[in-house]
């Protein structure tokens, strides 16, 4: 048997597309027709979960699903239709900047009166909201840097050397205890969350799935290497000030030392990564392939667009006193780890 026994459990479906992909993975039913993808909401729960189900086969797979499904041609055909719907919407919804310099310049300015999620959590976030934030973000942070590693064979020279150096740092510089995904698991333990990979997939909103699916989409397609680099730059450039605010939120609420450390580490590390990504990865890539400048800008804009949608959703729920999760955190997890 080559079933992935240790992979995460398949989550409940969120509509006909994700139900059909699940059924196909379990050999219990037919795939959706590629045309079905064309009618779905490109950012909705159903399409985003269906895409997530396809992509996870490239990371850790699913419990009880054959590892070989990663390269199942019928499934890949459906995935391509889902990706096309998602990517077309992203391109349409990010009219974008006139130039890459403009897109980067905007990221490098810090708003005095910022009103994003990290500002909210720093100023008035409560512990339950920090826990929800960590549960939502765990979909990415428990595989932090993995979607970006796929771009390495698609780069060369300066861009490859610098990208590999940043990824090496993300992976703990050769020390397992410093792998960023591990640091995030430690943060989750401080917050009394379950660190099992995939544990909060069912609870995560469509907006979070879209942010992670975008990384997988950009990472898995060589044709989108410029967008992947732009996306990565946007994450690294905005991470440092955002992480400082989240570290302050963790300190103010007494979340715990590991929770503070995760964000403190990102303040310093990403102040370096930002410089390396701009001066070496982007500059190196464009030296070799100047025609990719528009794609780099698209990666930046798409990241901003999806992060804004996620932030808007989280703040709307929290300001109304509602949970942002589809499934509330179980009571067993509300006991902080001692």
């Amino acid at each position, binding site marked *: 048997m080559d079933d992935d026994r240790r992979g995460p459990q398949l989550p409940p479906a969120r509509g006909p597309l994700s139900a059909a992909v699940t059924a196909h993975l379990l050999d219990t039913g037919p795939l959706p027709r590629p045309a079905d993808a064309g009618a779905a909401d490109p950012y909705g729960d159903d399409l985003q979960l269906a895409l997530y189900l396809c992509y996870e086969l490239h990371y850790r797979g699913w419990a009880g699903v054959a590892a070989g499904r990663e390269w199942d041609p019928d499934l890949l055909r459906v995935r391509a239709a889902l990706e096309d719907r998602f990517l077309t919407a992203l391109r349409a919804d990010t009219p974008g900047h006139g130039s890459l310099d403009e897109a980067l310049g905007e990221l*490098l300015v*810090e708003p005095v009166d910022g009103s994003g999620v990290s500002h909210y959590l720093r100023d008035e976030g409560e512990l339950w909201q920090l826990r929800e934030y960590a549960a939502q973000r765990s979909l990415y942070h428990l595989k932090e840097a993995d979607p970006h590693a796929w771009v390495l064979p698609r780069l060369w020279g300066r861009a490859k050397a610098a990208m590999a150096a940043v990824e090496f740092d993300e992976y703990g*510089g050769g020390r397992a205890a410093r792998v960023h995904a591990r640091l995030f698991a430690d943060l989750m333990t401080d917050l009394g969350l379950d660190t099992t990979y995939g544990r909060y997939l069912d609870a995560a909103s469509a907006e979070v799935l879209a942010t992670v699916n975008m990384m997988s989409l950009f990472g898995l397609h060589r044709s989108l290497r410029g967008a992947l680099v732009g996306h990565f730059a946007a994450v690294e450039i905005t991470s*440092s*000030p955002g992480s400082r605010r989240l570290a302050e939120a963790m300190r103010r609420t007494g979340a715990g030392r590991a929770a503070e450390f995760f964000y403190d580490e990102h*303040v*310093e590390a990403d102040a370096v990564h930002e410089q390396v990504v701009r*001066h070496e990865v982007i500059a190196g890539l464009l030296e070799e392939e100047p025609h990719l400048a528009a794609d780099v800008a698209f990666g930046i804009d798409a990241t901003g667009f999806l992060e804004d949608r996620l932030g808007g959703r989280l703040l709307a729920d929290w300001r109304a006193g509602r949970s942002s999760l589809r499934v509330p955190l179980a009571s067993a997890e509300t006991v902080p780890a001692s």
Partner: protein
Amino acid sequence: MPNEPSESAEDARRAPARRITMQRQGPILVDGPVEVELEDGTTVASDRWRVALCTCRRSRRYPWCDTSHRKRV
């Protein structure tokens, strides 16, 4: 056709001068690990492969850059 390696083993052993990247706006970048002596006589260390040193003196994690040099609008 015979060729020379881009960087020979001897080049690598010769430990070239440490390269520091300066910018008008932003930190000084230097290859780590580094030890930094501060005015008050204390020493702080970083073992990152690349280190960003604050030059605007606004960093709350001085001497390390925390992006506080950015323009605020």
